[in-house]
């Protein structure tokens, strides 16, 4: 039954990849969406089955076959659905279905073959992503991990005729390779230490050990795994690929680079919660990296002008929050934020896609503005998404972000909490800068180059027999709001952005953190089920007791962050609605800082100078012109020269005289026989 979940999208991939060229668009797109919906239905059924059990027994397994059997090392291809995996598969298949449906409209301008190619990649991605979260051991997870990396590469470079798109794809792939290398090393180290790759067995092997006081094997292994996570989940220092990944189609950014794939690193840490929590050094590193990534990406997001890049940095920043939560040991909070973030960030990305779609590929927010009237559905859903991510009370982002901030504070990381609050302010500000610049104010679309705009689109003019002048003046009337399929996805996601948070209303607000309790068994070892049952019960009680004491603290922290969110929105409203010149003045007042942010702290340039260029120079001058040309080619050519020299000497022996041959034969025989006779 579980195997059906990734099987449906895989089937969709096979059909679209093999027959897609001949299928009409409605069928190839519909098939892909249907595969996802089927997968979603099966996921629901499986999760229902899981939920109907006692908390400690909440997992179902399916072993397809023994994948590797080599001596003592036996590895099964096993899928396992536990509470953590069930949240992930519902997010992946649910939001994935919506994004597939959205894509059927968004990509309709593509040629039929390209259209099928797009959907085959998208389905393949979903299949690998599901393998990633369903895998019961590191190697199955790694298959999915690499597979989603491949699909990410294929989809970023979907418009590969464009140099920037194919470059961005390569960048994503190569940066991820660095992380994956560390991930493999970490996996091997875990295997060497515990002799198994199965998550449950690792957890129950670690559980009896005390937290590692010295920097040892566990710390090294988890750090290596975390480096893998920084690659996949775009954290410092390997985050550089994600902003460039926006070259891909917008639904891809929503699905892969916001909702699902980039959260794989967070998921991986959650999956190995027991392992990580036994390595306090690694946890500290995770928390610090997460907080600093959140802050840094937030500051960059404040000055970017490309609507998708702002969202990309926002994603990096929110992923930083998730890692912060993981690092302070609040695994439930991290996964909770992952889950709510999937809704509102997918909503925002799809909203930006609808804007770009309406403006025929315009992505620069300086050329937008005043789209509120023309795109009401897009505007309202985008606004809800922005409110949710900003952390306005009552929406999804508020609950999850506050839980992370509260847990950070409660675990005694006050400095990280301050960074988190600061990032929260930045988040509210840059998101509403985006909203106000895109949807409010005067219309700047078509303004920069009206003549060019007309000449570029003769086909559109011919469809609409209006004169060029009226076309320009009525640019707004040409704006078409999201088509039905896109609107459907936007509205559902907007509802999700509002309601998703209510799965985890904290106790301080009278809820009982249902999601946290649901996830809890996934973060404890399950060595002996009866024992674990008691443990979970104890943890629940202890948590309840602790939280009644901390409720006051949580409430006051909540008030602080709500005020921060509203201040951020107000600040954005003041600057970008009322006094646009304030922003320019601020930029002019601190030109150095502004340029630093606009150029993303020059990280790409630093990497280029520190890593790419040295590698290039060593490869070109050292390895190519030096070792390859002189040593390797030299060895090959040298062998040839030596053979040539000797043979020009030895061929004198081939005189053509039969008698000379016979003579040498005779002498040879005599010598050999003589040797054996007289030795």
């Amino acid at each position, binding site marked *: 039954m579980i195997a059906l979940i990734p099987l449906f999208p895989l089937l969709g991939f096979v059909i679209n990849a093999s027959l897609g060229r001949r299928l009409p668009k409605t069928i190839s797109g519909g098939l892909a969406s249907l595969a996802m919906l089927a997968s979603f239905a099966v996921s629901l059924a499986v999760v229902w089955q899981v939920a109907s059990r006692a908390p400690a027994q909440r997992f179902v397994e399916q072993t397809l076959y023994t994948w590797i059997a080599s001596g003592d090392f036996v590895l099964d291809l096993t899928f396992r659905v536990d509470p953590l995996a069930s949240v992930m598969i519902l997010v992946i298949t649910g939001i994935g279905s919506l994004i597939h449906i959205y894509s059927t409209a968004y990509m309709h301008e593509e040629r039929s073959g390209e259209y099928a190619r797009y959907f085959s990649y998208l389905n393949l991605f979903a299949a690998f992503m599901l393998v990633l979260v369903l895998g019961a051991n590191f190697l199955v997870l790694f298959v999915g991990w690499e597979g989603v990396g491949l699909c990410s590469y294929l989809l970023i470079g979907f418009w590969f005729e464009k140099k920037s798109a194919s470059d961005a794809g390569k960048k994503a792939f190569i940066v991820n390779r660095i992380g994956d290398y560390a991930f493999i090393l970490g996996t091997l180290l875990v295997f060497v230490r515990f002799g198994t790759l199965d998550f449950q067995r690792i957890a129950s092997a670690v559980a009896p050990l005390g937290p590692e006081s010295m920097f040892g094997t566990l710390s090294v292994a988890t750090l290596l795994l975390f480096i893998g996570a920084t690659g996949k989940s775009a954290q410092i220092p390997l985050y550089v690929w994600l902003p460039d990944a926006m070259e891909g189609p917008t639904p891809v950014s929503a699905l892969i680079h916001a909702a699902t794939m980039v959260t794989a690193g967070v998921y991986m840490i959650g999956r190995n919660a027991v392992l990580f929590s036994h390595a306090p050094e690694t946890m500290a590193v995770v928390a610090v990296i997460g907080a600093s990534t959140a802050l840094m990406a937030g500051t960059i997001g404040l000055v970017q002008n490309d609507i998708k890049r702002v969202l990309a940095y926002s994603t990096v920043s929110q992923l930083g929050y998730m890692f912060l939560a993981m690092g302070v040991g609040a695994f439930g909070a991290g996964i909770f934020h992952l889950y709510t973030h999937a809704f509102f960030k997918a909503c925002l990305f799809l909203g930006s896609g609808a804007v770009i779609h309406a403006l025929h590929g315009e992505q620069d927010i300086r050329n937008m503005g005043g789209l509120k009237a023309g795109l009401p559905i897009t505007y309202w859903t985008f606004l809800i998404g922005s409110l949710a991510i900003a952390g306005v009370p009552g929406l999804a982002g508020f609950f999850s972000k506050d839980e992370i901030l509260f847990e950070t504070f409660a675990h005694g990381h006050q400095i990280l909490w301050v960074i988190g609050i600061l990032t929260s302010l930045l988040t509210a500000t840059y998101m509403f800068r985006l909203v106000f610049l895109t949807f409010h104010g005067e219309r700047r679309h078509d303004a920069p180059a009206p003549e060019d705009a007309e000449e570029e689109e003769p086909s559109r003019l011919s469809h609409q027999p209006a004169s060029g002048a009226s076309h320009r003046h009525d640019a707004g009337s040409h704006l078409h709001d999201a088509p039905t399929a896109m609107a459907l996805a936007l509205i559902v996601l907007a509802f999700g952005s509002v309601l998703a948070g209510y799965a985890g209303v904290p106790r301080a607000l009278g809820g009982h953190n249902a999601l946290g309790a649901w996830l809890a068994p996934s973060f404890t070892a399950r060595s002996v089920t009866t024992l674990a049952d008691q443990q979970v019960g104890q943890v629940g009680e202890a948590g309840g007791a602790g939280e009644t004491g901390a409720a006051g603290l949580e409430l006051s922290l909540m008030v602080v962050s709500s005020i921060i969110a509203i201040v951020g929105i107000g600040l954005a409203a003041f600057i970008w609605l009322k006094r646009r010149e304030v922003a320019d003045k601020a930029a002019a007042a601190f030109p150095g800082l502004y340029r630093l942010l606009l150029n993303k702290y020059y990280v790409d340039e630093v990497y280029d100078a520190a890593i790419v260029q040295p590698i290039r120079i060593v490869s070109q001058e050292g390895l190519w012109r030096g070792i390859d040309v002189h040593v390797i080619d030299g060895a090959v050519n040298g062998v040839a020269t030596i053979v040539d020299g000797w043979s020009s000497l030895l061929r004198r022996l*081939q*005189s053509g005289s039969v*008698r000379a041959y016979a003579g040498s034969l005779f002498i040879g025989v005599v010598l050999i026989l003589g040797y054996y006779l007289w030795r």
Partner: protein
Amino acid sequence: MIPLGHYLIVSALLFAIGTAGVFLRRNLITILLSIEIMLNAVNLTFVAFGRSQGTVDGQIITFFVMTVAAAEAAVGLAIVIGLFRHRESLNPDAFTLLKW
């Protein structure tokens, strides 16, 4: 009964004569004949050993050698005739074209 050593001495003499013929004579046909002498020297050894061991193995191998020798003589003579038609000579030193 003649002891084995006598046969071997005769055989060695025959073989030496054949070898000397191959090296010293300048006529291809004579060289072929010398080779036949060497082969028969070997045959004699085989038969002698077979006799002294009381088995027929030596005689069987001799039959094989004789068969091969007959074939070799036929092919060799054919080649010699071909060469002679080509060069009007039977001196092996006249045929040194096949070299580097």
